[in-house]
Each structure stands twice: as C-alpha cells, then as structure tokens.
C-alpha cells in the first residue's frame, strides 16, 4: 500500500506561486496584497449591519491560515484541527466564566498559549506517524477532546454550552456592542498581527524547509534536516494560532458549545482552505469569504441545497481546480497572458 504510507504529496500540485521567484525578492510586498485589507476596512463602511458576521469571517480566516501553515506548507494532512480551535475557545471562555478573568487581550493570549501547549504535546506524539495513520490519529484525537468536554460538563457546560462569559470592554473602553463594531476592529487587528507573523514564518528559511519537507521528505533527511522537530515546531505555532481564532470566537459570541471541537469544524476548515487554495496564505481569505457568504445565502434558501452545493463544489475543485480558487485565478491569468503574447 505504498500510496498510503508513502509521501502524500505526489500529484498534489500544492505549489505556491512564489516558487519561481528569486529568493531575494520573494518576501517583498506586492501591491495586490493591499487588496484584502482595503476590502476588510471598506466592508466596515459598506456593510455596517453585517459586522458581527464579518467578525466571524475574520475569525475563520485566522483559523484557515493556521491550517495552511501545516497543511499547505508542511504537507501535514489533518482531520482534527478543531482540537486547537476548541481548546482556545474553551480556554478563553472558562477563564471568564470560572475565574472571572474578563480582560480580553490577555485572555486571548492565554487561549493561544493553551492551544499551543495542546498542539505541542499532541504533536510530539502525532507527528511520529504519517499517511493514513496520521489522518486517523488527528481525527480521533479531536473527537477524544470533544468527548472529554462532553463528559466534564460541570466545567465545560457540556452539550448546553458554557454560560457566564462576561468579557470586559477592550482597553477598558470598547464594549462588545450589539452590532459588533468594536469586535470587528479587534478581530481585524488580531488578523493583521497573525497574518504578518505567518507571512514572516513562511518566507523564513524555516518556512522554506517546511516546503522542502512537503515536497521530498527523503531528501530533507539527507540534507540534515531534523524533520520531526521542524514539524513539531510548526504544528505548535499552528495550534496556537488556531487557539487564538477559537479564543476570539468565544469572546465575540460570549458562548461556547461542544461544536467548537466537532468533526464538522475540522472538516469545514479543511474545505475552506482547499477551496481558497493551499500554500499561499491568501487562499485562507478567499476560501473563508466565499464559503461563508455563499453558505449564509444558500442556507436561507434551504439547508440541503447548501449541503449538496458545497459537496458538489468540493468534488469539482478536487477534479478540476486542485489549486483552489486562487490557483484557478492565477492559472487563468497566466493563460490569458500566454494567449496574448
């Protein structure tokens, strides 16, 4: 069964566009990179009634970026990334509900830290495995956490959810108002910080070595890379960022239920990232916006219509646009350029 235990990057075409750029220029900012931020700020003024929804999109982008670091760059296939989102969400929620720790920024840092610790500990075990075993283990680990949270309902609130989260105003001034204005800015600021950090990591020699691991792990061993250690490091970072997304989720909703840890969340974030495009950071933006907006519109029509539609899109993406929407757009662009010249 070589295709199961061997390299899982064969024919996966997860090549970021920057691979054919000179290393000394690659990390420089391009003008087009301003676009998502212009849109994010513009959306505040254009859709003032949808900012709570906008906040959830921004949170999803952070979560998707965290997954991109391990899946898109390091090639770790996981079906259990909700484990870390959920850890962050419960950490932020329980800090407030049980300890009365209501200050949001420090709460968020602690949420990220808790998830990173969880990622580190589980990563030390999980990343010794590859292929199908790794997929199954990530899946089972997340579900185990879900069942644990369900079991210890006296501290997690179990199936009914964690009540009693009272987050203080941001910086002592800005409350979580009904329309979500302040939390939109708060989340956007966190996204900027997370994105800048992820971008740094991706273009660093460390980040390049992750791509090497994804592309040919055998050669990475041969050039002296401590592969396992690298993977644990990026897994820990990724888990921490997922925890920050989860923490923001808990704070903005002032409520946490078991489904922060659920299989559906792990599956959805994977679909979102694949839809947008892996290994390019911005795929997270495209995937999250398209998925959540379309979901919002279609479920209003009928939920089964949405379910069928998202399944169909996923099948089509795998068969015909494996590099995601963003990859599809860049490919089309190149085609047009070629056709013109």
């Amino acid at each position, binding site marked *: *069964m*070589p*295709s*199961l*235990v061997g390299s*899982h*990057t*064969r*024919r*996966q075409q997860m090549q970021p566009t920057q691979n054919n750029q000179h290393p000394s220029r690659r990390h420089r900012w391009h003008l087009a990179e301003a676009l998502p931020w212009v849109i994010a700020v513009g959306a505040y003024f254009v859709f003032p009634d949808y900012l709570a929804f906008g906040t959830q999109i921004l949170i999803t982008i952070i979560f998707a970026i965290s997954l991109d670091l391990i*899946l898109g760059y390091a090639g770790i*296939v996981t*079906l259990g990334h909700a484990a870390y989102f959920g850890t962050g969400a419960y950490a932020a929620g329980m800090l407030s509900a049980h300890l009365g720790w209501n200050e949001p920024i420090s709460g968020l840092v602690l949420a990220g830290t808790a998830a990173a610790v969880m990622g580190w500990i589980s990563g030390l*075990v999980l990343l010794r*495995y590859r*292929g*199908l*075993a790794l*997929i*199954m*283990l990530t*899946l*089972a*680990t997340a*579900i*185990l956490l879900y*069942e*644990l949270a*369900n*079991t210890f*309902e006296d501290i997690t609130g179990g199936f009914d959810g964690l009540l009693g989260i009272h987050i203080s105003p941001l910086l002592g001034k800005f409350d979580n108002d009904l329309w979500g204005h302040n939390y939109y800015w708060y989340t956007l600021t966190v996204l900027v910080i997370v994105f800048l950090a992820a971008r740094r990591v991706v273009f660093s020699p460390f980040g390049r070595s992750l791509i090497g691991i994804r592309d040919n792990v055998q050669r990475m061993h041969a050039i002296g890379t401590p592969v396992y250690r690298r993977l644990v490091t990026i897994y820990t970072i990724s888990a921490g960022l997922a925890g920050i997304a989860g923490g923001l989720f808990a704070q903005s909703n002032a409520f946490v239920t078991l489904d922060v840890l659920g*299989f*559906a969340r792990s*599956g959805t974030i*994977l*679909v979102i990232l*694949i839809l947008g495009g892996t290994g390019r950071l911005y795929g997270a933006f495209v995937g999250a916006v398209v998925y959540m907006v379309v979901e919002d519109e279609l479920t209003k029509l009928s*939920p*089964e*219509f*949405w*379910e*069928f*539609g*998202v*399944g*169909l*899109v*996923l*099948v089509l*993406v*795998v*068969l015909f646009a*494996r590099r995601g929407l963003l990859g599809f757009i860049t490919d089309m662009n190149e085609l047009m350029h070629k056709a013109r010249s």
Partner: protein
Amino acid sequence: MSEFLNVVISIVFDGLAYAMILFIISVGLSVTMGLMGFVNLAHGVFAMAGGYATVAIMSQLGIGFLPALLCAGVAIGVASLVLEQTLYAPLYKAGELDQLLLSIGLVFMASGAFTYFFGPDPISVQIPDYLHGQIDLGVRSFPTYRVFMIAVGIAMALGLWISLERTLIGARIRAAVDNRPMAEAVGINVNRLFKLTFALGSGIAAIGGGLAIDILGLTPNFAIQYLVLFLIVVAVGGLGTIRGTFVAALALGIIDNAGKYLWPEGGAFFIYAVAIAILLWRPSGLFGRTD
C-alpha cells in the same frame, strides 16, 4: 442468575449486535482502502442509500423486509460501480488528501440529496413479525432482531472468510492486497478485480444499512454521523483484512457498549481512547502489514 452476570451478558450481547453492524458496513471499506489505497470517507453513503432503498422498495413494490434488503444490496452495489468508474478511478494515483476531499464532497452531496428526497426526519422500517419480540435462548431471553443481526453478521463474516480463503477469486484478492505489482506481473487484472470487490463491498454495506435502521435509526445525516466510526474500525483492524475488520468491530462494539453502560457520562470516550491507543501501538492496525 446473578445481577452481575446479567449485566455482563447484556453488555456483550448488545455490543455484539452493534459490532455486527459495524462489521457488515465497514468490511467493504477495508477492501477499498486495502486494495486500492483509496481513503474513502463516503463509504457510509452506501449504507445510508441501502437503508433508504430498503424502505423505498418495501413501500413501492410491496415486498417484505428481507427480499427488499437483498434488492437494495444489489441495486446499490451496481450503482456504486458508476461512482467508482467516474469519480474514484481518476484519483487512485492521487494523494490521500485529494481522495479524502473528494469523498467528503460526496458525503455532503448525498446528505443534501437524501434530505431533499426523504426529508430530514428519522424514518423507520417495518420489520417482519417473526423478528419482533424476544427469543428464549435457554439462559435468558433476548430481543429477536438483535439475535438475528448477530447471526447475519457471523454468517456474513464466515461466508466472506471462506470465499476469500477458498476460492480462486479470493486468492487473487489476497495476492493483490499483499503485493499489487507482483499480482499484476503474474497476470491478475487488479482493476477489474477491484471493481468486483468494490461493488460487493458497497452492496454488503447497503444491506448493513438496511439492517441497521431498527438499531441505529436512519436520517440523511447517517453517512456523516457514522463516518468516523467506520473509518476507525477499518484503521484499527488493518486495511484489507476481513479478520482485522471483524476483530476491530467486535472489540470497539463491545467496549463502546461497556463504556456507555458503566460510565454513561463518558459517552463515546472509550471507543476513541482505545482506538488511539491501538493506532499508536500499531499504526497499520491490528492485522495490517507493518512494513
């Protein structure tokens, strides 16, 4: 009979019935993943389709439960070939991520489509009178349907085991699972062999889905709800081994029942804890090849 013994018997008995459902539905998946290395998250769809087909056939054709089950098995087995040909085959050489995503997509599509046609609510099936009620097996009386379920599961396991061990086709399948290039080199048409086993596995899963309605219930969410469980059974047993799938189904089925009985708040905690422990210890499953 002592209370303690009674409890143990109940746990084992209900666990057995549950295990047989897991086995019947998962065994085809084990073959798919073992023979073609295809990570198929959509296998539960065949069981779900089998369940709905059974109910539909009974009401449309006015035939009984058991004949309807067989019809559903055949129909789904044949229909699954279309799916295999059009969607799975192009991805045999792809990475497991692609296969995983494609099959998740199929699960979503199926769930949406079945909701559209059958509605979101659980549906039930009319099982024949002789399978109702209790049956006295000497020591104690047991629910007849579950006894039937266990009997069917054991018969199916024996049947599959014998055909795999004793027939020419079985020998070919074993050869192909064991060493595909070698099997092809000696002239076995692995692709055709696989289509056959794929259809058989889907058909059996469909029968399992029909049988399971009375125990697990049936909603359009079935394939999503039990996706993880079927995968875990196969992974724990080891890909491509009927014996492994059977043992894993037994172990997980009984442990799950025991866990839920002894520690109700623990929910499904045990089954996943045990699965993780086994996979950490033997990443290719209990009976999987370890090289």
